[in-house]
């Protein structure tokens, strides 16, 4: 399978008066063509910096990135005609109505009027925006505006879509609609690079993932390979009333605040659950998820606050 994006020893340092911030350091991984690739990490991990470099908005400090076979540093024109981007915290132009905006964007990309309208109609329906097609964007809710941004790029004919936290601020129903559109893009064999804070989203949509932490690549691979990093398939979460020594008889134990996580095989997980229930302890039992992988690799959950001021914010 050819790679849509290939990063080799990529580094990015933001220099500013009186100092600099390293946003990415020696990052190498590949994004296979035709797949949805989830780039996960906390605020300041370097996700947006990576996306902006690959989307030809930002130059790397060192290393190389090739997108669709072209070098981002020198062959940006060849890349730009084949990509489309929803930047983080982007907002649609407020003085147009929803349909106009999508058609304008497609026309801007060189699509003819008839095809632009056809695609706009399709995406409006798909993302549940039909009712607001003639409404000025300035009169839409925040969630609707995010969906309009997603609709613009999903309606395009780009081979590679960059979506930087496209569902932030959306209600669960709207999130699912955006997910559906991303899945549809994937079925069309288009490549999607998705950055997100939501691990359930990354897990649901991405066949491949990479985890960034503090500008470094922690791990990358297929969803299944990442899950397999935790050998034991179940996680039992119990409150702290049960001792770690006792819990270790059932599996691998790690502490997390007042809770203890036990990774166990199915039989041990059931036994532990019965024991905890018999003692009246609070517990949950679930298959291992990406969140568990993240927790094990990084040592703290994704939604815990950023270590320091976001490097991306300094850009």
């Amino acid at each position, binding site marked *: 399978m050819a790679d849509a994006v290939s990063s080799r020893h990529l580094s990015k340092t933001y220099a500013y008066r009186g100092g600099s911030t390293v946003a990415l350091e020696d990052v190498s991984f590949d994004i296979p063509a035709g797949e949805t690739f989830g780039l996960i990490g906390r605020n300041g991990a370097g996700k947006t910096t990576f996306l902006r470099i690959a989307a030809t908005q930002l130059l790397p400090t060192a290393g190389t990135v090739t997108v669709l076979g072209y070098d981002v540093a020198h062959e940006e024109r060849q890349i730009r005609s084949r990509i489309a981007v929803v930047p983080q*915290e982007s*907002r649609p132009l407020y*003085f147009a109505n929803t349909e106009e905006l999508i058609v304008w964007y497609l026309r801007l*990309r060189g699509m003819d009027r008839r095809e632009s309208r056809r695609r706009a109609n399709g995406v409006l329906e798909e993302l549940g925006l039909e009712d607001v097609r003639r409404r*000025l964007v300035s009169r839409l809710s925040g969630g609707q505006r995010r969906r309009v941004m997603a609709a613009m790029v999903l309606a395009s004919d780009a081979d590679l879509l960059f979506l930087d936290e496209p569902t932030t601020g959306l209600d669960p129903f709207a999130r699912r609609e955006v997910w559906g559109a991303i899945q549809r893009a994937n079925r069309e064999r288009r490549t999607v690079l998705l950055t997100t804070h939501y691990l359930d989203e990354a897990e649901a949509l991405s066949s491949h993932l990479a985890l960034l932490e503090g500008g470094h690549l922690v791990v990358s691979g297929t969803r299944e390979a990442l899950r397999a990093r935790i050998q034991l398939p179940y996680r039992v979460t119990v409150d702290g009333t049960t001792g770690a020594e006792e819990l270790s008889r059932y599996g691998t134990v790690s502490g997390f605040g007042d809770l203890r996580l036990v990774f166990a095989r199915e039989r041990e997980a059931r036994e532990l659950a019965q024991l905890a229930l018999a003692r009246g302890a609070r517990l949950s039992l679930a298959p291992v998820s990406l969140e568990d992988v993240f927790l094990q690799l990084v040592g703290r959950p994704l939604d815990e606050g950023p270590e320091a001021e976001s490097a991306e914010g300094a850009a």
Partner: protein
Amino acid sequence: MRTQPLYLLNTVASPLAFLFFVVVASRGALLSYGILGGMILTVLTTGTGIQSDLVHYKQDMKFQDVVVSSPVEAPIYVAGIALSEFVYAVPGLVVFLLLSAVRFPGVPPTGFVYSLGGAATLFGALLLVWAFASALGFTIATYFQDIRETFVFSPLISLIMTTLPPVYYPISSIPASIRWAAYLSPTTYAADLVHRAVCGVHSACYEAPSLAAAGVDWAVLLGLTAVLFFLAATKARWREP
């Protein structure tokens, strides 16, 4: 404009207010200069005014990032923004053209307030002012991180290019010893051309221009426009370093 039509009045307000004060202060003597200066101020502020839009679209809405990562090149984007901004200059230009029609009688053979050559000169000079101001606005805007920074520069550019130089008044009003400073502003040359366009055929002008030759005016305006376009193409941060 669609969401707030009053924006259209915004570009008329400042040039008209300035005209009002100039006319009152000169007891009407500088009315002709004021009308012609108002046209220059209108197109200049429209051109430099794109910096606020560009910074807003780039920093607050991230729209520029959407465009950068698309087949659209920077000159097309800037030309689009500049043209859309120019719409706001239209009411102001219409007002000042009407005022000039009242102030100056029609000239044969057109019966219009400007001769054909004068109209072409006026159009060309205003076009160049708008073009270099737009290029300047774009280049500056790409270095700003916050729209509030443009609030500092816009009045400063207006001050340096329209309030201080002889746009609303004749250059002879400036003391001879510092008159050279007026020629540091490109709008001095544009004003000279515009005054020629009218005063060459009308006696209503307070004072016919006399210092710079029309050829020099055109050369300076064309040269500056070319330099600013070159700077916009090479120094503006379309893609961030």
